[in-house]
């Protein structure tokens, strides 16, 4: 269940940890704050983009999140982990800028994923793009509580404990929401004939077992 954090979330050449950087930024070292910014910028941008589906809104979320962090430097506890704090602010800002009903932005996929990979025929690339589109539509159809868990886990690579800290619920609740989201996704994806997912009969094994026991 634990996923490895993506390398793109971290700064490349900065050996200091978040705690040292926060202390240095408090002391007025602008470079330390810049390092923190570039360490978490892309992850927060992707989170904002996944929720708002608007690249400009996602960039504003990045700026607003770090502007708040800059103002809160004195109040931040360096011993606590900075990443959940930043993501919590970004989640709140993202949900404040969610697209209203009826407003559609461009797809999360910017089209670069539709290009055929090496050794892949155009038809296979088109099938893969269609499969991605269907999966992302199913993720979008989830409720906000379940969608944020899926996005943080599968897109940002956060583990359950970090997600629990971000959305301020117990780890068990995160686990339950992720499980519910995956079950729902499984049901929705199995309805698409082009995707290789098991049909509903296999998925509803619990109900079958209950019927058998009742007999």
């Amino acid at each position: 269940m634990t996923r490895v954090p993506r390398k793109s979330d971290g700064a490349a050449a900065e050996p200091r940890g978040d705690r040292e950087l926060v202390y240095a930024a408090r002391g007025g070292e602008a470079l330390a704050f810049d390092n923190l910014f570039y360490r978490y910028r892309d992850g927060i941008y992707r989170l904002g983009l996944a929720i708002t589906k608007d690249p400009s809104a996602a960039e504003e979320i990045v700026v607003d999140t770090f502007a708040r962090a800059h103002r809160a430097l004195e109040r931040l506890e360096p011993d606590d982990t900075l990443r959940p704090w930043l993501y919590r602010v970004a989640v709140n800002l993202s949900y404040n800028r969610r697209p209203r009903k009826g407003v559609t932005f461009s797809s999360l996929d910017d089209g670069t994923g539709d290009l055929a990979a090496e050794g892949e025929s155009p038809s296979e690339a088109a099938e893969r793009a269609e499969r991605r589109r269907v999966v992302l539509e199913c993720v979008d159809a989830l409720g906000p509580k379940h969608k944020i868990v899926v996005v943080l886990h599968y897109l940002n690579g956060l583990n359950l404990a970090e997600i629990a800290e971000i959305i301020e619920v117990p780890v068990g609740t995160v686990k339950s929401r992720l499980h519910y989201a995956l079950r729902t996704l499984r049901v929705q994806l199995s309805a698409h004939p082009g995707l290789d997912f098991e049909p509903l009969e296999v998925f509803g094994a619990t109900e079958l077992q209950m019927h058998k026991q009742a007999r």
Partner: protein
Amino acid sequence: MRLFGPAPLSLDQRLPLDAALDDAFGPLRARTATVGAARVRAAVRWSSPEPVPLGGLALLTRISELTIAAAISAFVFAGAVTSVESVPTVPDISRDAVTAGGWMLNGRNAFQRPISSQFVDYRTTAGDLAANAATARRREVAAPAQTVRDSEPFVARP
């Protein structure tokens, strides 16, 4: 087997789902932001500063200001209310008179019993009129006559 809850996904159910989600988020995971740290610094510089907690002296100053403001507001309000209350009201004499069956001021600023009162009959009204007329006659009679004394010369001459 769990009777009261959804069954957990088995590994062969979970793995394709994980792969599908990983693949679907792949292009989004490759996206990078184009904003730089300078934009954050500009946002911090140009945004309104957060209110800082007040110190002891500043808190005392603020309390003094608020107290003076409240006192001036109360003074102005009290003055306005007092000026409204001090406007003299004209007593409704006719109503009081009618209800009490007493006297009232008429148009010539003279006391008169209310005609519409049930306690007043025509004889009383006639008596009032007669009394007024008698008073007027009495004043005419009591007016002193102009006397001419002989000691005054040329007084009788035209």
